[in-house]
């Protein structure tokens, strides 16, 4: 499903690649080089914050300030917590590459170890939501139906019935949730990235986040069955209408042309 989702995003990906190539100068270029170097290095948990700080000063400080206090180009990171870093960097949204209505997700350029170091550093700036453990985000033992109800109350208005995504104002959008890892969904609910509101544990307890993740996995996961056949994007009547016109009426008119066409005449010899 991840592959499929990647393919769905293909046109966007092409644009991103193009911009990547164009923007491969200056600070952004600098962001790659040390990352590659860092890959080879042995990392130690005890040095995580130290290492994180190094990564931070190279990849993030230009916008978020040397101490994470924020600048005109980026918000303060004090108190956003490790969950926010794990989500933003893990989904490739950060470091951002171009201004626009919204920072889209793209290929992540850090290893998970580097992300953890960055997160550890940012978390050290001020307490905030913590990266969830695997157990916290696993859909096991969750109430799928309750998750569905919660999803329709809290999420569907932006992300569509089964998380296919939808439009917001002025070019912003709620992204598709297809193929997004449970951890990132959990972190998004916890931290409210960009224009998404947060759903903190005080109003949506941990168990309910699990329910929502389990519901999404059930209705829009790799194994989800679409009993009726092609899902048509799961977008509702617009794609159904297009399909009815193009393939339904289109096929019937093609048949009608055959029915009414003249039969080939015998060649006069």
């Amino acid at each position, binding site marked *: 499903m991840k592959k499929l989702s990647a393919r769905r995003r293909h046109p966007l990906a092409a644009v991103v690649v193009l911009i990547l190539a164009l923007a491969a100068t200056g600070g952004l270029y600098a962001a790659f080089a040390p990352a590659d170097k860092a890959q080879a290095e042995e990392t130690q948990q005890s040095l995580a914050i130290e290492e994180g700080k190094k990564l931070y000063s190279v990849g993030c400080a230009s916008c978020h300030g040397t101490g994470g206090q924020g600048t005109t180009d980026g918000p303060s990171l004090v108190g956003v917590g490790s969950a926010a870093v794990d989500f933003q960097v893990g989904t490739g949204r950060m470091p951002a590459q171009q201004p626009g209505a919204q920072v889209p997700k793209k290929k992540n350029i850090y290893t998970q170890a580097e992300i953890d170091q960055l997160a550890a550093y940012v978390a050290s700036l001020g307490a905030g939501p913590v990266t969830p453990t695997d157990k916290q985000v696993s859909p096991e033992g969750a109430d799928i139906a309750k998750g569905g109800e919660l999803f329709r109350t809290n999420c569907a208005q932006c992300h569509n019935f089964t998380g296919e*995504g939808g439009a917001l104002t002025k070019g912003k959008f709620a992204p598709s949730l297809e193929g997004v890892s449970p951890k990132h969904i959990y972190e998004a609910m916890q931290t409210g990235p960009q224009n998404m509101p947060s759903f903190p544990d005080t109003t949506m307890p941990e168990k309910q986040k699990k329910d929502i993740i389990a519901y999404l996995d059930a*209705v829009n996961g790799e194994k989800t069955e679409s009993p*009726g*056949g*092609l*899902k048509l994007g799961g977008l509702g009547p617009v794609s159904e209408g297009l399909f009815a016109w193009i393939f339904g009426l289109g096929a019937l008119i093609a048949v*009608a042309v055959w029915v*009414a066409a003249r039969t080939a005449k015998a060649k006069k010899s």
Partner: protein
Amino acid sequence: MSTTTSSTDNKRKAPAGERVADWADGRLGIYSLAKANMRKIFPDHWSFMLGEICLYSFIIIILTGVYLTLFFHPSMNEVEYHGSYVPLQGQLMSEAFNSTMHISFDVRGGLLIRQIHHWAALIFVAAMLVHMMRVFFTGAFRKPREVNWLFGFLLLVLGMFTGFTGYSLPDDLLSGTGVRFMQGAVLSVPIVGTYLSMFLFGGEFPGGDFVARFYSVHILLLPGIMLGLVVAHLILVFYHKHTQFAGPGKTNKNVVGMPLLPVYMAKAGGFFFLVFGVIAAISALASINPIWALGPYRPDQVSTGAQPDWYMGFSEGLIRVMPGWEINAWGHTLVLGVFIPLIIFPLVLVTIAVWPFIESWVTGDKREHHILDRPRNAPTRTAFGVAWLTWYFILLIGGGNDLWATHFHLSINSITWFVRIAFFVGPVIAFIITKRICLGLQRRDKDKVLHGRESGIIKRLPHGEFIEVHEPLSQEALHTLTAHEQHKPLELGPTVDENGVERKVKGTQKLKAKLSQGMYGEESQIPKPTADEYKEITSGHGHH
């Protein structure tokens, strides 16, 4: 079975089928009926089968609809779900939703029939629109078929509302949102809006009545009227006999084609099975209205991408792009932001429906027309039709503005503004362009008649010039390309008569003359080649 001598001998000789027919003839007069109709002629053209697609999908909808009523419970009583679909276990839902879930997951073949019903409905309305535009662009609505045009138009409108009520029955989150929209629109009606809403829903929205009420409207009232109209529509088709395109041997006084028995019966009968087969296959391959993914309706829940089925999409577009005007005065509210779209909604449809009557008023033509126009030969009409379609499709874009935004990475606000402007400008541009294209095609036809067909053979003349050889058209083609009639624009004549007395010209006459000039004036049609022109060119070989 009792017998008397001679007549039994005769009857024994007659085959069984004939005896049954005799029996029926004695009571129903079937022989006289068959005499007139059994070898009735139907012309062959693919576009004449669009109406059949409508008829057959209508029959398919009725057949599958009856099956669905055997399992559907039109009730809004709340029940807990305990069927086989896991992600809704234990959820509260209306019996309507619950029984639709039962049909989809627990009745064998229920899902297939539901999908056939819904796909056929979408195709039905789409085919009606295309069929209507075929009739429009070919001028088939002209006398004596104006009444049948209206019957067809009514069928389209009723089809839309039957579809809407049916879409609302499962009481899912998407359709409930649509019903809420309708209720909000009803509320906007000045003076009586709140009363209408209370009566329609048996109190406040959503109440517990609307599914049962929509159900009787959806399965009885509207389809009953439609069935009557379909029968009347078909009787008139039989009675008027089918129109045909101009061609050799085809005149306004005859109809050329194949007889009902056997060819047309086999083709039309076979086409029913083809239509049914295609729709069944589509229903096996593509999911439609997966209510389990949508969830049961709750007035405090919603999903993005909330749209009606496509045929209501243009009304959705109207309401989405309307600015939020609201007038509050003397303790009352005039909700123009909703009420104006509610008024424009029927007007959009009426605009295309009244054209035949405007055209017949302007031309003053009272003759019967059985030969179809090629769209290019009626440039103003064709341009009007295309302008209307453009209008309609611009509104459809408005109705799906959020999906356009996400799929083409645009701003929803810009799309809304685009539709607001295009609503006024789009049809005008489409009108002008279409008319130009029609005139261009008329010129090309004229060239073809006068100078022949471009053969693609290049010839080099002795002095080095290259020319393309033009082949003269066959007699059939010459006739076909010149068979159309051309109206002359209406002249009002002098406003002062020979005695110097001013003649009064009524305003309606002036309007008619203006429209007539617009439709048939020099700017609006290319005079078709005359016999003189043709002879002059074909006799003198030197120039082409």
